[in-house]
């Protein structure tokens, strides 16, 4: 078996007396979509932060490829090929759709201390950006101001921006949150078409989407992983049922 793309080793994080991440270990392998599910408050957002780099772990290691990135800031991890989407969509609303993706391409091409050549007519940026927008089926919106897109389109745009960086891993924080059924279907299709080339760590509440997409699922409860396995294994796992049923009873 080839080496994992992302490896988390014994991560811990506490906020005051609250242990949000408990001795958490997890692997994302090449070619797979690894979903992380769990009830509200399980620590999913913190976990994403620890992987992306905006939450510092108290102990434990994050390996990306073969590299220990535990001490690296967000931008450095991104440069190494960690692409991401946010729970609350982070796009550049005043820019056009094309400019959003072109900036992603630009960031991937190295530093941006280029002061004179106009960026908006830069073929090296636009050609690649357009190809990505074509792939995610947002080509018809190229000239639209990103802030004017529908919620689902913004989600897709965010994915397109991440793809511009030619990521080695995509970190998706609830990409289906707030999207309509049509939009969800489109997103699932796009993600499915990408997963052979880009492994993903998917945090998602939409169970239909998770079970359609994921090769493996880890269940996070109170900051610790209680089970990891294929969708079928997870569906039939007693501990998982208990965790989710427990939540249902209190809900």
């Amino acid at each position: 078996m080839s080496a994992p793309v992302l490896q988390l080793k014994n991560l811990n994080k506490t906020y005051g007396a609250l242990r949000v991440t408990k001795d958490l270990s997890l692997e994302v392998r090449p070619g797979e979509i690894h979903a992380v599910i769990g009830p509200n408050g399980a620590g999913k957002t913190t976990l994403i932060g620890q992987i992306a780099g905006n939450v510092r772990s108290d102990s434990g290691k994050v390996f990306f490829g073969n590299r220990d990135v535990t001490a690296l800031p967000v931008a450095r991890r991104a440069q190494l090929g960690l692409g991401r989407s946010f729970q609350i969509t982070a796009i550049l609303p005043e820019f056009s759709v094309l400019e959003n993706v072109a900036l992603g391409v630009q960031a991937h091409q190295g530093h941006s201390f280029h002061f004179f050549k106009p960026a908006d007519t830069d073929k090296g940026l636009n050609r690649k950006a357009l190809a990505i927008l074509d792939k995610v089926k947002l080509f018809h919106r190229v000239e639209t101001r990103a802030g004017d897109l529908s919620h689902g389109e913004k989600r897709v745009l965010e994915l397109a921006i991440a793809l511009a960086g030619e990521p080695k891993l995509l970190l998706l924080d609830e990409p289906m949150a707030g999207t309509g059924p049509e939009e969800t279907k489109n997103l699932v299709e796009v993600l499915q078409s990408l997963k052979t080339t880009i492994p993903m760590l998917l945090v998602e509440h939409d169970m239909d989407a998770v079970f359609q997409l994921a090769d493996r699922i880890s269940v996070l409860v109170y900051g610790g992983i209680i089970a990891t396995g294929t969708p079928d294994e997870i569906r039939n796992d007693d501990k998982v049922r208990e965790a989710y049923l427990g939540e249902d009873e209190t809900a």
Partner: protein
Amino acid sequence: MSGTALLFRNRVVPVLLFLLLALVPVYATYMDDRFLLLFFTRILVLAIAAVSLDFILGLGAMVSFGHAAYLGLGAYAVGILADSDIWDAWISFPVAILVSGLFALVTGAISLRTRGVYFIMITLAFGQMAYFTATSLSAYGGDDGLTLWGRSEFFDTEIFSDATWFYYLVFGVLLVVTLLLRRIAGSRFGRVLKGAKQSEARLHAIGIDPYRYRLAAYVIAGMIAGLAGALMANQSEFVSPAYMSWHRSGELIVMVILGGLGSLYGAVLGAVAYMSLEEVLSGYTEHWRLIFGPLLILVVLYGKGGLLGLIKGGGKS
């Protein structure tokens, strides 16, 4: 906004604006109005500083409340060198620009670690620091400032000493600075600045830490404002701490907002409008600010995007 309206705003308005400014000396000579020429020279000097402020404020959302410090630094560079009998512009101007750039680098490196209100306060603090340092320079007039017994010299030309020549020098600097900064605004560098204003998290996530880019922009703006300061010392043949006061920084911000944020030549328009209004209104009453204040509020409220917003017909940008 329609294509023609965009063309009008981005091409016709700035060309017309600079054309009119280029004709000011012609008109002044024709009317034999020396004051008008001097007045517009002063406006254009301030416009250079305003354009540089718009570069960081409009494009990068860095609300510097200490931008006047660079006007003062540039002016004092010329003044202090002149006091030591060094009148050559090719020495004093580069010194003015370098000193300003250095001050921007050091203060920017610290200020840019903060955001929002904190950034405003810390730049204000650095500005006031420069101001009080200037007032304590007793060798150079302290509070009273320093009178220059002449203007900078550029070899054997009359470019500084002749009022019309000097006007065109300032005009040329303003034109070049505006075009240069517009060019930068459209570059990859400019795109990062504009992007960082919209979502810092997104920039980090694609692998760009905006800090270095903001700092570079801050230094560029400081150097240009320093250049404006060097011109200002020549324009008024006088240098004083008042150049650096926070009132002046506030005025520059008002000019930028009045003209319309982020377009750069909007700042030129803002400088012309601000100074002209001040001149006209203060001719009627010493309480001119009572009229000017509400006017400013009206422009900002109804002309979303300042005077430029009004010009294009009040549409949404």
